[in-house]
């Protein structure tokens, strides 16, 4: 039995290792664990019954419904987009491919507030397309379509960002084998490509979901903050907080944090299972 080289480190002294580990843990504790702890203790401070009552307010229920609805539209959209983008960018060579690849990651570097403003300038009453859409009786800004568009923009890179490098790393031989065996393009995609991408896809979808649930900046600009109508959970939390209704604010924050924790836990579970499957595959090859 040899020692795991990763566990031995690369030769730094024990005190340095302890210092680095301690610093990392301290940072994690202060920036991640403590805030989460505060949210949950504050939410439960007035008692479970009071917290539950605050969440049963009509405005609170409307905010939760709206957040789930926006997420339920934005995530499938970005899943399909991510698959299509990965297929185009990883399996085809065309002029402008590099630019398109960079563009997919753009929403990560643009401030969400700017994205929201851009949507207002585009679809607002006096925006470029606003009057046209008004003519059709379609309202985008200060309504559900605007919230969905803002969320789609912000969460666009998550699925594509997982799938593009993954598909680029997979050799195309399996797809070619499917083609020589008589598969149509769709059959090849559904039976061979998609199953090969399944774990990465699921992870991308979970990240996208977590981000969509919590999006604040872009949504805040296009929402208009109509209580019970265009206020999502993060916006509702801010509004409650600004009114000094702290128990209600923390209650809703706890629900949102819980949703995020569940998605992160699901992703961690996937990582763990995938790691185990890879280890098993490697072990059986060596056997």
């Amino acid at each position, binding site marked *: 039995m040899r020692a795991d080289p990763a566990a031995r480190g690369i030769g730094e002294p024990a005190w340095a290792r302890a210092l680095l580990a301690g610093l990392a843990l301290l940072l994690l504790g202060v920036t991640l664990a403590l805030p989460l702890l505060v949210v949950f203790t504050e939410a439960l401070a007035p008692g479970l019954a009071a917290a539950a009552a605050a969440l049963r307010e009509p405005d609170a229920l409307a905010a939760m419904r709206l957040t789930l609805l926006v997420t339920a539209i934005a995530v499938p959209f970005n899943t399909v987009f991510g698959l299509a983008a990965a297929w185009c960018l990883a399996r085809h060579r065309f002029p402008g491919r590099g630019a398109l690849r960079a563009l997919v990651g753009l929403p990560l570097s643009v401030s969400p507030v700017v994205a929201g403003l851009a949507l207002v300038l585009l679809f607002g009453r006096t925006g470029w397309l606003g009057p046209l859409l008004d003519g059709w009786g379609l309202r985008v800004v200060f309504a559900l379509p605007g919230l969905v568009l803002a969320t789609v923009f912000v969460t666009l890179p998550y699925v594509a960002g997982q799938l593009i490098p993954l598909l680029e790393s997979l050799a195309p*031989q399996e797809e*070619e*084998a499917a083609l*020589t*065996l008589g598969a*149509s393009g769709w059959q090849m995609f559904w039976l*061979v490509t998609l*199953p090969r991408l399944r774990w990465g896809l699921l992870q991308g979808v979970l990240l996208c979901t977590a981000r969509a649930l919590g999006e604040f900046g872009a949504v805040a600009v296009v929402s208009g903050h109509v209580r019970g109508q265009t206020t999502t959970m993060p916006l509702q939390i801010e509004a409650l907080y600004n009114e000094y209704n702290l128990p209600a604010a923390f209650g809703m924050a706890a629900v949102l944090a819980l949703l995020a924790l569940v998605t992160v836990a699901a992703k961690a579970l996937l990582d763990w299972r995938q790691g185990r499957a890879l280890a098993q595959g490697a072990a059986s090859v060596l056997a």
Partner: protein
Amino acid sequence: MIRMEGLTKGFGATRALDGVSLDVAPGSFVALLGPSGSGKTTLLRVVAGLEQADAGSLWIGGRPALDLPPGKRSVGMVFQGYALFGHMTVADNIGFGLRVRGRHRTERAAAVERLLAMVHLEGLGARLPSQLSGGQRQRVALARALAVEPRILLLDEPFGALDRQVREELRAGLRRLQQELGITTLFVTHDQEEALALADRVVVLNRGAVAADLSTEELARGAVKGFAAGFLAVG
């Protein structure tokens, strides 16, 4: 069975194929031999339909084939590294071609059993490719390619990743199978010994063109000149 005329294919500035013309008789076993970069794999991929030729013509079984998609050319292909579907069992791998052709489950199961027996892998249908040895994987790839009853079998370095003993066993198995089925077979190799052991005709490629086209009897007699003589001597 296969007729190639002036097949040409370039990748950017390099010419992978430079006017290859070749006739492959029905039931024959032809080795495409050459150093790396000689265009042998490209030629195989053009025949399979995985690569588009820039110029030239190709007939498979008397029909023009260049405009046909890979699945309509009646070719079975064994890839270098085998390209088995890692998420499917051995049985599902072998039955894939029948599945996408809409054959019924029971018919498929019977065919898979027959093919497993043919490549001596009885009882391994439920395994995943990752649970097989290299030699077993190669035979699964062969069975998968033969499942759709192609008229032509294409093999790209089918023994490349195997150790010597396994390689020699599989060679004998492949040769026997090819003769039993009488299937026209084109296989790519850089190994002269392998070419001589398996094929009844060896086509030597160099820089995308046919440098020599020899029957194994001619090779045995030593009637080889030019590049081919040099390549065969060092190969």
